[in-house]
């Protein structure tokens, strides 16, 4: 294969993996602290909408980023309130977040712009343009979040406490550290990361918001998180792998490979889901989630 194609495929793989990576790291923070988050999809979606709307209104991509992060954090806090303070079911709350995001963005988008749920196309300073090597600043922000996550979670006192809250909250509580506080911090960090991912979708990668534009990326990120076994560097690898699969699927559309024939795009699209199911079933390796993930913490009285 010639080098030009490789470079293009690599480039588009990187582009496609960025939103996955942002959401995956968001999930990593949240779940490492013991809060299961299947609302990644919804948070990215509201962020994408808020970012596009703000970028359009203020004529600045950075305003979009602030709005995107803000919206995503608000949704993260709803999830946090339900699952940390109210000790509600975290899965149920996540489903609610996803439905709320899908419905609200469609309604508000339609009411504000009357373009079938789209925002008006963004141009010029309303978008994140190329910052370096043909990629926007957000790409590097998200890539930078990987070593940052690795360092903070793995090498700092705060990170150790946060991980401990996800494994054995009672021990952390006994040491006089607030379980609730740490979990809220994790949920907010997750909100910020989802916000960046969503903003990248509507203001970086594309020029505006489309109804349901996350199209399952939040769930692929969830798959990548399991694949990465809740670790930062492997998360980068898993997201890049899934982004690469996506890029290859786009590249192979309608092309007949010698000896194999035309590979159905759907076969490649199904791989992330299939690989996750197989991994979870423990056929190859074993993915073990943080022990307290999904369990609300109740102080003994």
């Amino acid at each position: 294969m010639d080098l030009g194609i490789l470079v293009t495929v690599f480039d588009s793989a990187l582009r496609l993996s960025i939103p996955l990576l942002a959401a995956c790291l968001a999930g990593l923070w949240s779940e490492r602290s013991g809060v299961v988050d299947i609302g990644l999809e919804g948070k990215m979606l509201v962020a994408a909408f808020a970012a596009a709307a703000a970028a359009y209104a203020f004529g600045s991509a950075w305003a979009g980023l602030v709005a995107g992060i803000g919206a995503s954090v608000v949704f993260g806090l709803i999830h946090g309130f339900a699952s940390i303070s109210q000790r509600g079911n975290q899965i149920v709350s996540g489903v609610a977040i996803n439905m709320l995001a899908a419905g609200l963005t469609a309604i508000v988008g339609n009411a504000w712009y009357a373009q079938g749920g789209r925002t008006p196309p963004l141009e010029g300073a309303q978008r994140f343009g190329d910052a370096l090597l043909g990629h926007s600043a957000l790409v590097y922000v998200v890539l930078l979040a990987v070593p940052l996550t690795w360092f903070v979670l793995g090498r700092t006192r705060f990170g150790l406490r946060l991980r401990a809250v996800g494994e054995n909250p009672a021990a952390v509580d006994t040491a006089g550290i607030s379980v609730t506080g740490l979990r809220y911090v994790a949920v907010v960090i997750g909100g910020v990361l989802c916000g960046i991912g969503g903003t990248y979708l509507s203001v970086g990668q594309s020029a505006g918001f489309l109804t349901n534009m996350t199209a399952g990326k939040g769930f692929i990120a969830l798959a990548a998180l399991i694949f990465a076994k809740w670790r930062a560097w492997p998360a980068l690898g898993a997201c890049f792998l899934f982004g690469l699969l996506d890029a290859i699927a786009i590249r192979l559309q309608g092309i007949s490979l010698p000896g194999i024939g035309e590979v159905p795009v759907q076969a490649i699209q199904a791989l992330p889901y299939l690989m996750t199911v197989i991994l979870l079933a423990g056929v190859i390796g074993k993915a073990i989630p943080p022990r307290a993930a999904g369990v609300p913490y109740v102080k003994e009285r």
Partner: protein
Amino acid sequence: MSAPLDLPKWADTVLVPAISVVAAFLVAGLVVVAIGENPLTATRWLLQGSLGTGEGLGFTLFYMTDFIFVGLAVAVAYHAGLFNIGGEGQATLAGLGIALVLNNLTFLPGFLLIPLGILGAAAFGAAWAAIPGYLQAKRGSHIVITTIMFNWLASVLIVYLLVNVLREPQSMNPETRAFPEQSYIPFMHEVFAAFGIEVPASQLNLTLVLALAAAYCVWLLIYRSRLGYAIRVVGSNPTAAVYAGISPARITVIAMVLSGALAGGLAVNELMGYQHRLLLEFTSGYGFVGIAVALMGRAHPVGIILASLLFGILYQGGAELAFEQPAITRDMVVVIGGIIILFAGALDGLFRRAVAHVLTRQKLARV
């Protein structure tokens, strides 16, 4: 869970869900106000469009049929302590089952073909749910994650099959050819016409009767049968179940099989009752509405029927509303569904505590 709050039964089964719904509508009303529309006229259009005309009522009951099935599906798994959010995927596969049966056995008469089609739906839905159930029971993979993945796998699979395999060669649309006519489940207006009663035409078909029968059977199963008892024991205390000689693994798989088969009812109503062909995205996110329905109905068949009626009203009324007030699209129903899931599911404790607080104060005042 925190210490269980002792609420009187009426408060637990009626008051708390009712408060959740009212709160959900208040929030939805705020959204309507926020986009500059009048929530009161919106409510009027909603009720007018869903209950005000015979035709509207027919459509309301049609949607209700969908929701009863998906609600029961979520509820049966819920009683076993399982959270099946794979209703979408299971219903999708059930649609595939229907298409394979009906379009391959075209020579059969209707009285054989219709039951076989329904069985095909149940079998395919059950199989798609059984795999995550098995993986949870035997391999310890979390059912929520696997059912999510199976939803996406189902949607990818059905696109592939409809685009490459099952599509009619001369058709541009990714859908199968029409099912044989004798396999159509009769429309309710046709049934009534046969008895000489004139009712307005709608999509409502006899599947509604099947849905109500399914609700009754689920009630019998869960509350009146040995298996149902085992399911509830596993759901509330798997360790105790083992001591009682019940195998949680076996019950997990059985509950998921039943759940998937029930989700298949959605495909029966939509495809055999109305569309008469297999097409993309016929599940329209109803699988997730099933979660709202089951939570609101407290996983009890009667509650599920009532909650399904409410969502039927919302879906049909929402369609009419979108026609009268275009700013309020049908996505409003998704928002309301989301808020109800949040309030009746995740924030349940909030209202329960409030109700318990008020009730104890009253009791103390009386003493």
